[in-house]
């Protein structure tokens, strides 16, 4: 497998007084060209793992390799640079800047990289067109529907052509039909052979969109499924 992300025995402990084990030795590989779903109940460690894989948190122990970069050995500054260039984010609440138009919001990652504004806006406009919201390009977030805001958020995540994309609960606030449409969009627009996509969700309605489904519980990966192939059970995990 051509792995974009590799985790080896990743442990994350929070708290100074009473330590809280958020991750208890996670082993994981995410290949390029696949849409992986990270699922599990609340408190299972999904978000912590996502943050570590996205270079937002350091693991307490273990090794994390993303796109060939050994994150656990990188400085905070190097992680910031990696996030700016190689990682795209789709947040659960979109987190669009209310003072910027859809087009300007979508251009933000390029502006962070120092790309000239005109060029960044041009690229953002192209993506918004691809995502079907070109007509709302000059609207502000409060003038957009939830679905439109999400498309803008997806455009923002893709505008700088990241090789690893993380989506946090993209369908949490949507009804079943909208959720499916969003996942179809993600599969159609985001998934590329040179890109790995990780979607954190607890929405079982979208599980059939995942090319790989990683189940977490109590800080551990308890099961991993590749629906197109045979079920692959991790040793010792419940089926």
């Amino acid at each position, binding site marked *: 497998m051509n792995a974009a992300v590799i985790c080896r025995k990743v442990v994350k402990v929070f708290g100074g007084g009473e330590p809280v084990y958020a991750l208890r030795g996670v082993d994981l590989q995410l290949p390029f060209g696949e849409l992986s779903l990270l699922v599990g109940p609340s408190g299972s460690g999904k978000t912590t793992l996502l943050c570590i894989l996205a270079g937002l948190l350091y693991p307490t122990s273990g090794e994390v390799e993303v796109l060939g970069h050994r994150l656990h050995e990188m400085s905070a500054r190097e992680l910031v640079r990696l996030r700016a260039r190689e990682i795209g984010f789709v947040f659960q609440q979109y*987190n669009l*800047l209310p*003072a910027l138009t859809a087009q300007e919001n979508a251009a933000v990652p390029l502006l962070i990289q120092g790309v000239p504004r005109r060029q960044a806006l041009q690229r953002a406009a192209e993506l918004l067109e691809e995502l079907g919201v070109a007509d709302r390009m000059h609207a502000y977030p409060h003038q957009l529907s939830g679905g439109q805001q999400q498309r803008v958020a997806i455009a923002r995540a893709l505008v700088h052509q990241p090789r690893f994309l993380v989506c946090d609960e993209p369908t949490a606030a949507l009804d079943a039909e909208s959720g499916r449409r969003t996942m179809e969009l993600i599969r159609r627009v985001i998934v590329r052979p040179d890109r790995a996509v990780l979607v954190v969700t607890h929405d079982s309605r979208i599980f059939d969109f995942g090319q790989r489904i990683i189940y977490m519980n109590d800080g551990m990966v308890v099961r991993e499924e590749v629906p197109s192939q045979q079920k692959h059970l991790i040793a010792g995990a419940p089926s």
Partner: protein
Amino acid sequence: MIWIAFQMLTGDRAKYFGILVGISFATLLIAQQSSIFCGLMLTASSQIYDAKDAPIWVMDPGMQFVDDIKPLSENELLRVRGVSGVAWAARFYKGLGRARFSDGKFQQMMILGLDDAYMVGAPREIVVGSLDDLRQPDAVIMDERGYRYLWPGEPYILGRTFEMNDRRAVLVGICKASRTFQTFPIIYTRFSQALRFAPQERKALSFILAAPKPGLDAKELCERITKQTRLKALTREEFAWVTIWYYIRRTGIPINFGTTVLLGFFVGTAIAGQTFYLFTIENLRQFGALKAMGLTNLRLIGMVLFQGIFVGTVGYGLGIGLAVGFGLLAERSDRLTFFMPWQVLVGTAVAVLLIVVLSSIFSLRKVLVLEPAQVFRA
């Protein structure tokens, strides 16, 4: 990113105007009160600057400010004239007298007596009449403000008479003079005439006005006069500052104005700081998202500081504009003093800069300690 910072700042109109109002109000209060204070201090020393042809003032060593008169004897004048480097030394009388008008009305007047021969210390501009008219018997020249006070709404009429110390005074001219601290009408007359108008004292010479010979520095001559005569000799600027410092030290004026200026500073900081803080708190998720997407703390600091400096500059401009508007209104009024030197502008700018930097730092704390991972938590 500066562009994004600008959009974020001006996008929330209510907060943007809230911060602007805070900074403009602080600027207005600081600049306006400081200018009124400067105006008052200028008033306190105005008579010194009005005698523009007198570069050196010689006085009793015990004198503390321009109205603290300790008269000198005629001998002192001769001693000053004997100091090498003195081009000329002239008598100058300054005192108060009571005028009685034909309708029985009394009015306290400030009498300035100019040396009969040199006429040094004359008013800076004669509006009606001429300085030479002072050589006529009983002649006085009155300042415009005093004339308008005594004969409100009446045209300038020369030849009006009144009594001072049972002596007849004849108005031969109207002049411009700076406002004084006591606000009494000012009359200029010859030194010999002033002594008749004023209550008799053994010594009557209030000041000796002097000038150095060409090529000699006024400050150096002052040192010579002080050394040789043991009198206090000061340049015009020195004497003005001695007077100003007396008022600053011995009156509550600076404390009163200083309190208002400080209040303006604190109120401005509180309003701007709180609004800026709220603005940041409300955008915290967005700042977190920007950090997650790879925006460094350094660039975030730059963004917030830019917002502060931008809003500070606009607020400063508005506040100074309002203060200058007040100054223009004050200029039309005889009751208000207003003087805005460049130091007030710079001082206010420094205060505003401090306000925006404090406000920014107050807000930045939250942004800098914000973990970008927080945006993934509900």
